[in-house]
């Protein structure tokens, strides 16, 4: 196969990204632990990062990679704040089950 010599088709990367994204959404829907739900969100972000890098490679655009850089920064900030919120919620509710945390007032 000439793929061996040439390389990997771009569409495969994109397909992987799409699959990872859908798995992330699925995890968001299925999982019952709050932290695991948050982890699914991180998975979704990573999938999108992959597609950005892929396109950056295809169009030789550095800005694509810079966008990934920024996404990483924002994901880091978001993870910090989100986990702090989860800790606060746990303190108030003493549970991490998503279905039990359904009232706005803490």
């Amino acid at each position, binding site marked *: 196969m000439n793929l061996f010599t040439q390389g990997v088709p771009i569409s495969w990367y994109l397909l992987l990204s799409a699959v990872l994204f859908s798995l992330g*959404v699925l995890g*968001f*829907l299925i999982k019952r632990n709050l932290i695991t*739900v948050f982890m699914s969100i991180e998975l979704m972000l990573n999938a999108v990062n992959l597609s950005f890098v892929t396109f950056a490679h295809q169009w030789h655009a550095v800005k694509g990679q810079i966008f990934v850089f920024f996404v990483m920064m924002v994901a880091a900030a978001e993870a910090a704040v989100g986990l702090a919120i989860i800790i606060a919620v746990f303190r108030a509710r003493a549970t991490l089950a*998503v*279905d039990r*945390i*359904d*009232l*706005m007032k803490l």
Partner: protein
Amino acid sequence: MTGTLYIWLIPLLPFAGFLLNGILGTRLPKWLVTTVALVAPLASFALVLNAARSIFGIGPAFDSLPYIETCPHPWISIGALHIDFSFVLDQLSLVMLLVITGVGFLIHIYSVGYMGHEEGYARYFSFLNLFLFFMTLLVLAGNALLMFVGWEGVGLASYLLIGFYFKKDSAANAGKKAFIVNRIGDFGFLIGIFLLLTNFGTLTFSEIAAKLTANPAWQGGVLTTIALCLLLGATGKSAQLPLYIWLPDAMEGPTPVSALIHAATMVTAGVYMIARTHVLFDHAPFALDTVAVIGAATALFAATIGLVQNDIKRVLAYSTISQLGYMFLGCGVAAYSAAIFHLVTHAFFKALLFLAAGSVIHAIGGEQDLRKMGGLWRKLPITFWTMTTAVLAIAGFFPFAGFFSKDAILYAAYLQGPAGRALWFVGLVTALLTSFYMFRLWYLTFLGKSRSPEVHPHESPWSMLGPLVILALLSIGGGWIGAGAGLGRFGSYLSLSTGARAAESTNPHLELILSIAAVAVAFAGWFIADLLYRQKPAEPAQLAEALPEAYKLLANKYYVDEFYGATVVKPLLGFSKYVLGWVVDFGILGGLAWLLGGIAMLAGAILQRWQSGNLRSYAAWLAAGAAAVLLFMLLPWPWTSPWPISVQFIWKVMGR
């Protein structure tokens, strides 16, 4: 002519007086209120005199009219419709303005004395000035819409002034009645305006007249309809059949108001309107005949009611309706100049009659019942003599003012063929009745012995007597301007704007005979009144007992008010209460509100279940929404284009 006459100030000065006295009047000292109230009409009168002077010139230089002033800012300008604020001063409006501002000013002076001790002094004068504003606006208007503004406005001023003593139920009701009945007439006027607009494309009087004179074959048909609609408006404002019922009740207002509005000026607006649009009426003979018939019938009708009334102001009110009938009769036989002439003389003597009656009422402490008056001629000499001149004038005695004007109308009516002769006869009988009931009033009020001896009447102050004297002089000598063939100098002046009537005074002998007949009739009326009220004072009561049915019919004004109440008012009230109140208000509108509320509650109940607080269901719906957007953007929809929306969007951004 050079320079400007500032006729736009003529309405605006009284309006300024209205604003000043209306807003600040209660806080200003009384002398200042009086000054403001008197300066405004005086200034308007001065401007009118100035206009008259510079238009008259030294000789008969009448050909510089009409003088038009238009506001440079257009009023309505939509598509083909252009209506401006334009004031037109021609002979007709000049004559009307002289009467309005002149007599109006005299009545303002009179009011200072009459209303001096009333509360609401400033309010009274502000309303009176408001009335002047609207009336001058009406008369100066160059198009029908501006005239309608003035028309409605005088109705408003009339309502405000009739209901001046608003704490009295009867006064408030009378004000309402006047306004509502006027509105019925205004409806006719409005329909007339709409029809004018659709048929002529313009509301400016001069343009309408030009279009009609350029097309002499256009008669009847839609023109009759327009004329009849306008006539409805005129009957409402000028208290003719069938819309006269408000005028007797309007006597609840202060007497100077009755003199100004319900005798001299506002009620003449209908006559003025017909004279102003006379070209239209000339092209609609059926409408013109209707005018004449209504006028004559009203004259006779009102005169019969006036025979047995016991309130001095009611007698004068019915007399006003009757004299207005004469004016309508004059218009109806196309003698517009004669009608306007009678309008002018009537303004003089009717205002005088009302003001003198007011003086009497003021003197005897508010009593208005004729049966309680009597023997006042010694105690109130000036009032007595001035009122006498007015009574002689209205009865049509030579050489007083009423003689010339009434005669001109009757003569014009007689010339119109057999129907005209019938109208003339009706007019003659009415003259007899007029003379009778005016002298009845005169005898009962002034002569004989006092029927309420406990009252000590005192003569009125000079602020009230002065206008009486001036009006008396006008009643005596005011008719001479119309003396001579074809209404003399007055006629030839006025006919420039109202059109010379065909067959003017072809037969001076006939005119003389008719005049003698009229004067004879006036004497006859005096004689009968003398018989019944001086020589045999018990006779009227016996006559009333001998003809109880007839007497009751007349005394109750032919039960017209009751008739209207039963046929118009009660069904309307019932309709309002049951149909509009229950069905529409409670059922439809209430039901609608209830329905809307119900829908909102239902929607809320349904949507509430979405707000479960459950994170996973929120996430699921989020994902569904995202999927929907993706589907929409990335799939080609066959009914839009073969390309997906996202691609189309990118192309558009790229400018393809």
